[in-house]
């Protein structure tokens, strides 16, 4: 019954190695090559800005992108499951949901660490994006809690898919309500859309996004394979139990 095949494959090893090399290059650029954010007040000449704390954004911003992408994949895979009813889609939804939850936690952690020196606070209730990200994290924690409550992964598939789709539909409502609630944010406007950053800083940020996508892909691939194995193991367990029961009946 044992298998020589593991969740690692030639492709995943290449993906993994590329991610590690990319991450090393990213760290090099983020810490040693790019400049800190130092600006000078036009009237007083005083220095201000994020200084070296800006180097955290090369991690924080890519994590945000990866988080939302993972949740979109989870939603699409959940819808796919409800249509196709195969546990390929379910495994993909589970993998993307779990990885998205992890990266969302990292967004909150890195955001909080970045916020301390820059905003002088670990947490800001009035910031729309902080609140929305926290709620998103809680939503998908609930999704994982629901999955974990079922012993049979196949029985969890439909409820989990429904919860994921409801959560994704509710996210714009949550964002809107939080925005109207306070109507203020400490967050600067979108880093990428206004293109205030340029040259090496922009390159490093883009590299950060690419590396994060590679890492996310590796994690989702392996998590998918683990979820697939869990499904197969459960099915095999049932088949073995039925076979054993048949043998007992035959002996009788």
């Amino acid at each position, binding site marked *: 019954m044992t298998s020589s095949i593991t969740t690692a494959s030639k492709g995943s090893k290449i993906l993994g190695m590329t991610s590690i090399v990319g991450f090393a290059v990213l760290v090099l650029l983020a810490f040693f090559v790019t400049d800190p954010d130092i600006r000078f007040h036009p009237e007083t000449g005083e220095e201000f800005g994020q200084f070296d704390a800006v180097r955290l954004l090369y991690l924080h911003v890519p994590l945000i992108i990866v988080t939302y992408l993972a949740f979109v994949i989870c939603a699409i895979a959940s819808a796919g499951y409800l249509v196709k009813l195969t546990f390929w889609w379910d495994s993909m939804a589970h993998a993307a949901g779990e990885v998205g939850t992890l990266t969302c936690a990292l967004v909150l952690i890195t955001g909080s660490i970045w916020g301390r020196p820059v905003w002088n606070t670990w947490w800001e209730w009035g910031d729309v994006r902080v609140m929305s990200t926290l709620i998103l994290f809680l939503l998908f924690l*609930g999704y994982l809690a629901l999955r974990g409550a079922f012993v049979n992964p196949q029985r969890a598939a439909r409820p989990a898919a*429904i919860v994921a789709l409801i959560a994704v539909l509710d996210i714009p409502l949550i964002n809107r309500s939080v925005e109207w609630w306070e109507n203020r944010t400490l967050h600067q406007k979108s880093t990428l859309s206004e293109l205030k950053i340029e040259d090496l800083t922009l390159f490093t940020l883009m590299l950060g996004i690419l590396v994060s996508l590679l890492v996310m892909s590796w994690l989702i691939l392996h998590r998918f394979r683990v979820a697939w194995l869990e499904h197969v193991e459960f099915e095999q367990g049932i088949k073995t139990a039925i076979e054993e029961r048949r043998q007992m009946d035959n002996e009788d």
Partner: protein
Amino acid sequence: MKRLFADIGLITGKDLKIELRSRVLINQVAPFALMILVLFGIALDADQQSLRNFASGLFWISVLLCALMAISRSMTIERDDEALVGLNLSGVDPIAIFLGKTCAIAIQLLVLEIFLGVGIILLYRSEVEDLWLLVSTGLFACIAISALGTIFGFLASGLGVRETLLPILLLPLLLPVLIGATRAFDDALGVAAINGWNWFAFVAGLTVILTAVGAGANHLMAEN
């Protein structure tokens, strides 16, 4: 359509009759609601001005916590003796089951809201400046809470960890309702100079969306 409304009435009536006989709402949930109001008062050091300022938020948090109990109770009565299986096999439209249970929970929540409303007026000395806004928001918000609560109650039903799972699943999704209803109540109680009717419109919109989402999710669950 007539049959659908009749079935909804049947399910709602069944749940309410069970509630009237068991009196769980009166004996357990209402005292729990009162306890929450008292605990908030103690925790905030019974500072009258703070209690008045925060009355809306405290009211709606109390409603949400009581709603969890009401939803859990609503699912428990279906779990006993496999009653839900019997209901599904009886030929009643799943939509009628969903809407019927939603109505039953909403009516119970409405009673609780009236009880809590009196509570915040007496205990927190809140003053009602716009009764229509208060009543309208309370009505629509409890329908929204009930609709989403019913569907998540069904999802978590049958699981050993349903009591702890339901809050984790439901509360983050109800955040827009909490925000909208709290802001509308802030205006209705004269605590904030905002346009509460805009927030009521938001809550009303949410109610329509969440009820539709709940009905859709119920349809998907029923296919199983």
